[in-house]
């Protein structure tokens, strides 16, 4: 399951993720992280059963945490199955089935947003459910 962790810069200087890993023993996979002058955001992937303990620990350390249920959403009325998204996705979310219909494996998505930006038909968008 994927968690979107945001923290202020003050906390950002502390090794929050490392501390969570050490204290909980859960192996956290950081899939994306952006840290600028005022705040930071990290998208992490953890085993479903460890959600509670990781979430609580992050909250204790001052970060706010959201569970990401849906990652990328395809509007089938707009999509023409061109496949422009297939080769630019770093996570290989997109592929063709046997009939050259676009297949979306949203679970792999790390919300980098590249496909949303380049879809010629504006058929992709970010749908976040908390």
């Amino acid at each position, binding site marked *: 399951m994927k968690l979107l962790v945001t923290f202020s810069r003050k906390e950002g200087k502390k090794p929050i993720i490392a501390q969570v890993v050490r204290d909980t023993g859960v192996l956290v996979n950081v899939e994306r992280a952006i840290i600028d002058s005022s705040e930071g955001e990290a998208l992490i992937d953890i085993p479903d059963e460890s959600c509670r303990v990781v979430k609580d620990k992050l909250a204790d350390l001052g970060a706010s945490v959201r569970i990401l249920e849906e990652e990328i959403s395809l509007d089938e009325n707009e999509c*023409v*199955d061109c496949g422009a998204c297939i*080769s*630019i996705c770093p996570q290989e979310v997109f592929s063709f089935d046997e009939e*050259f219909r676009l297949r979306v494996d949203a679970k792999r998505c790390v919300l980098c947003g590249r496909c949303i930006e*380049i879809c010629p038909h504006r058929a992709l968008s970010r749908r976040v459910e908390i």
Partner: protein
Amino acid sequence: MKKTIHQINERIRDGNARVVTAEEMPALVAELGEEGALAEVDVVTTGTFGAMCSSGGFFNFGHADPPIRMERVWLNDVEAYAGLAAVDAFIGATQQSTTREENYGGAHVIEDFIAGKAVELRAISRGTDCYPRRTITTDLLLENLNQAIMCNPRNGYQRYNAACNSTDRVLHTYMGMLLPGCGNVTYSGAGLLNPISNDPHFRVIGSGVPCLLGGAPGMVIGEGTQASPAGGFGTLMVTADMKQMDTEYIRAATMTGYGVTLYVGLGIPIPILDIETVRSTAVRDEDIWVDIIDYGVPSRDRPSIGKVNYAMLKSGHLEINGEEVRISSLSSLRRARRVASDLKKWIESGKMPVCLPTRRIDPSKRVGPMRETAQGPRVLEIMDRRVITISEDEPIRDAAKKLLKGETNHLPVINGKGVLVGIVTTYDVSKAVVNPEKISHVRDIMRRRVITTTADEPVDIAVRKLEKHNISALPVVDGEFRVVGMLTAMDLGKLFGGRWLK
């Protein structure tokens, strides 16, 4: 054995014609042999669905009261060409909105009309004795127009070169997003389903031949613009009535960072008259080869990094320099198949008879480059030849002195052989003064990845580099990477008032 077009049409009329798609044909020929396939098959249908920038349409809006001779026309803020007559205009698919830029354009106007949406017409005029009105604004539906005739100067490209990018930065092109270091390959085209690939010598495709365009029955006008059939890059000019079109087969799109385009569905029936048409329609994806062009080279004659066929492209993967690279198509094979199968149904049901060209397209034509009578400015002509350099072993203080004395903000750093190894700016020096720490020499603060230009590079390309990297100067280097000049944003000012400003 030969068949006449009349025999085929008789069978179409009687509902007995045997129609197959271009995808089904190769296996059928393999099974029945050429003579067998000729006896069996009457028509092969083709189809393609992809971005076809060179598309558009003529509109006639009807006369207002009092009447206006429209001199400039906008449809949903997209300008249409009105230099035709009082109330006619041509909208080009790639023309962009004056208010929404690349998010809306002529292609969207066409799609909105076909989707049944209202489109705002705005027009202005000087006013004349016969057409006194000066402005008009009105909402129009497709059904309110007298004519809406799609007329696409260049559609159905026979094949199209694939694209990649050898540079170290992302490129946004009409071939989609190209990742650095040849990180992906993109292509367009339906391969064996493409109309011209099934008749490369234009024996049966030509002026007057029927087609399915945007879901509507249409017609091939003739040779398309930029057609180069001798080199395997034929194109077609096609037309059909927008009022009969379907948005399943006409879709506006935006190639991010490039602009608006129109995805068009086009299919042409190929009557199977003789052994030659059997052979040409038995074409397979494996037979249709294209180059992979490196779009990282910003000139007309971009280099090819290799050849691929459509079977390889459709596989979705390719090996480049020992690494597996993913492939994106930009056209839709699924919809191309649908166009071909729709066309098959049209013919099977007797709705569309076939015919031979009233005028043939010359298959020996080859496209030529533009004749340029004046060359655009080159870096050589505006660069600053006065080059002040520094070596990496000198103290930062000396760099500061040189910057001040030379009244410049950029110091190229060179090694003992005069070869460019880095660059130092006033910003880097100021930063070093603010945070002295342990740094003392040029090598500690210089940037090692220098964006450069060459003396014979067109200024437009150099300007693109400045913009793309958000920098204000480029060292001009020779073949040995020695600095021969500097091109700064200041030098660009020389273009104004000079002989380039005509």
